[in-house]
């Protein structure tokens, strides 16, 4: 049966079997102007390590563009190019298509090359959403779009993005004396949006830098499976979330343990929850109260008891009322009572 899709082989990247088997080589090395304890830089390091040397990386505007190319210097050890804020999707598709033409014409050796475009939550969940969506419908090109999510426009000093959580303090939602909660929107559920909207996409997943081996292996799987793929990574941001950088790793874990950040992958249409998230779903681990996560961050320092309770109720809803707990927000019974302001 012909599908009219011209598929090209990918690199076969097998999972690293344990932390001791992770290669020493760095393709994103020291010397970037990021914050102390920057988890977004950490996912760049892990991503480059997972993908290996035959890789091209494209980066949409954001912290990981600005902090990594200042004053004619860079920490990148693989080819990297800046692309506009909303064009992670289109640049990935364009690069993959250009590589194919170059190889067909014999300008380049015909070999599988990883194409990865990364974008922040501003570039991916807000501005670049349409280009990413369009790219995920092209089955012919092998590429990965990685969204690193610090829940704000971090590079321009912390403004609200589509993935900023409810009630958070940002430059656009400073709590006041009269009105305490200035941000009323709930975080976009980006990975599930990609799953539901792009049935031919072979791999969509969420990862966390606090589970580095798993994150690298999921990236390797996404690069090997073929066609356009999408990964959403949560990155605690010491600057914008206002916490001591030593907590970066712990907060990533807490986001998972409280049920706020579910870890899952959808491979060829099959959903698999993994890590602590799987344990939460099958009752082997009791979700921690979200309060433990919130009170460690200065961006929630204005929350009062009722705000914490409302936040908790929304997380409970994810796990108790959603048709597929933690993933797909269709539900039968809605109870949405935000606290009086």
């Amino acid at each position, binding site marked *: 049966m012909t599908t009219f899709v011209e598929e090209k082989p990918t690199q076969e990247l097998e999972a690293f079997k344990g932390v001791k088997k992770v290669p*020493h080589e760095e393709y994103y090395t020291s010397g970037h102007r*990021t914050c102390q304890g920057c988890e977004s830089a950490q996912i760049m390091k892990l991503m480059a390590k997972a993908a290996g040397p035959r890789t091209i990386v494209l980066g949409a505007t954001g912290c990981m563009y600005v902090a990594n190319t200042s004053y004619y210097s860079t920490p990148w050890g693989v080819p990297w190019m800046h692309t506009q804020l909303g064009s992670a999707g289109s640049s990935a598709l364009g690069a993959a298509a250009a590589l194919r033409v170059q190889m067909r014409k014999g300008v380049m050796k015909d070999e599988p090359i990883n194409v990865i475009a990364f974008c922040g939550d501003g570039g991916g969940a807000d501005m670049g959403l349409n280009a990413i969506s369009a790219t995920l419908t092209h089955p012919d090109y092998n590429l990965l779009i990685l969204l690193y999510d610090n829940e704000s426009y971090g590079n321009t*000093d912390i403004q609200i993005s589509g993935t900023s959580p409810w009630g958070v303090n940002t430059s656009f939602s400073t709590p006041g004396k009269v009105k305490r909660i200035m941000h009323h929107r709930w975080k976009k559920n980006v990975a599930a949006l990609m799953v539901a909207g792009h049935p031919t996409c072979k791999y969509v997943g969420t990862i966390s830098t606090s589970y580095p081996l798993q994150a690298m292996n999921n990236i390797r799987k996404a690069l090997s499976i073929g066609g356009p793929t999408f990964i959403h990574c949560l990155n605690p941001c010491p*600057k914008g979330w206002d916490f001591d950088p030593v907590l970066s790793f712990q907060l990533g874990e807490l986001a998972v343990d409280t049920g706020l950040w579910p870890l899952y992958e959808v491979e060829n249409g099959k959903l698999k929850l993994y890590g602590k998230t799987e344990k939460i779903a099958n009752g082997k681990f009791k979700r921690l109260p979200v309060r433990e996560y919130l009170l460690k961050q*200065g961006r929630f320092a204005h929350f009062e008891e009722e705000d914490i309770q409302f936040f908790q109720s929304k997380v409970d809803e994810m796990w108790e009322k959603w048709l597929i707990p933690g993933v797909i927000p269709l539900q039968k019974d809605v109870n949405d009572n935000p606290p009086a302001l």
Partner: protein
Amino acid sequence: MGKLFAVEIIYRGVFQKTLAKNITRGVVLAAHNQGKLGLSFGRYGDSPERNGIPAKSFAIVADDEQTLEEGMAQYEPKRVDVTVVLDDTLCKGVESWAWYGLQPVHRALKPGHTLIVVSLQDAPTLLKSIHHRETPYKLGVLKGATSFSGMWVYKDDHTDVRVLGAIAKALPELVGLTAIKQFVTEKLKNPLKGTSAQLAFDRFHSIEVKPGEGNPEELPKFELLKWEDMRDGVSIKGQPQGGPYKDPITKQVGGFRPARNELFKKGSTRTQRPVVNFATCTKCTLCWLNCPDASFDVTPEGTYDTNFESCCGCGICEDVCPVKDCITMVNEAQFHDNKSQWEAFKKDQDAYLKWLEKTIKEAEPEEKRSHGFRYRGQYKEQVPEALEAAQRA
């Protein structure tokens, strides 16, 4: 033409952003009480700030409007009358967003003028870090713990008004104590802060630093490329791949040392550094794997040695290390070089382990360095402690 004054505050990005802004704003508003005009601003090139990366905030003050305009016509003051360093670890030199390479803290300070450092150390100790220069200046220590908070929650431990008090003592022509106390009463509306400013004023004194005195280290010079020197398409040369680590003592070759960006070294961002007990290390890889800055070299024996030119002191390695007390974060002010800890360990294990114990022990009571927001209510607990330390000093 009247007289033009410039005040420069060097601070840790984000951690001391609000504090630095409050001080430069305070200088301008207090000077206004004496009929002067002024303006306070952050350095454009430092924005967007990053946690710990050194940044600057300025206040320029003039007797009349025309003089102020002359001062405002500059991108930033090239020569300043007072430099305030809000964190003593900055004395080792600063490398901000805005330039290439490490620069001394007194680079813009006029000869004979005062450098104010907020620190619990004394002036001779600080001079081990502050680089030598050709012209004399004065060095004054404002005794107190480093005040760190973050983007949204501010720790009001009176460091702002204490610095203002010290500035009034160091440069009375710019602003007097009466004008500062008036500003505190009228704008800050906190009488206790007036007392803090007065105390800082009374106790602040400075010593003369002679030409050539200080840290003898010669700082490397960097030249920014001109446009005609750049490569086609304004492309930047990527980093090469690293290679095996050659053990400086055993001469054994193995492990791995990554290539690192030569043009930007993040070390000057560090306010605390990891001290590693190699004897208890289980080689679990977690510090190396979870370091966002790829700061660890893998030794031929499979342990992990911190590269202090690139380590920015976030503390994640201490947090993820599963062995108790194997990695300890210690106040950076304790150290005066960036030498390899693994080399010292291999040279003499017993001596290294003794040094390790002593270093960690000495660091504890001196100052448990606060590094931003850890839990709600933390600053409220810390403020009385900080005020008490300042009273004692």
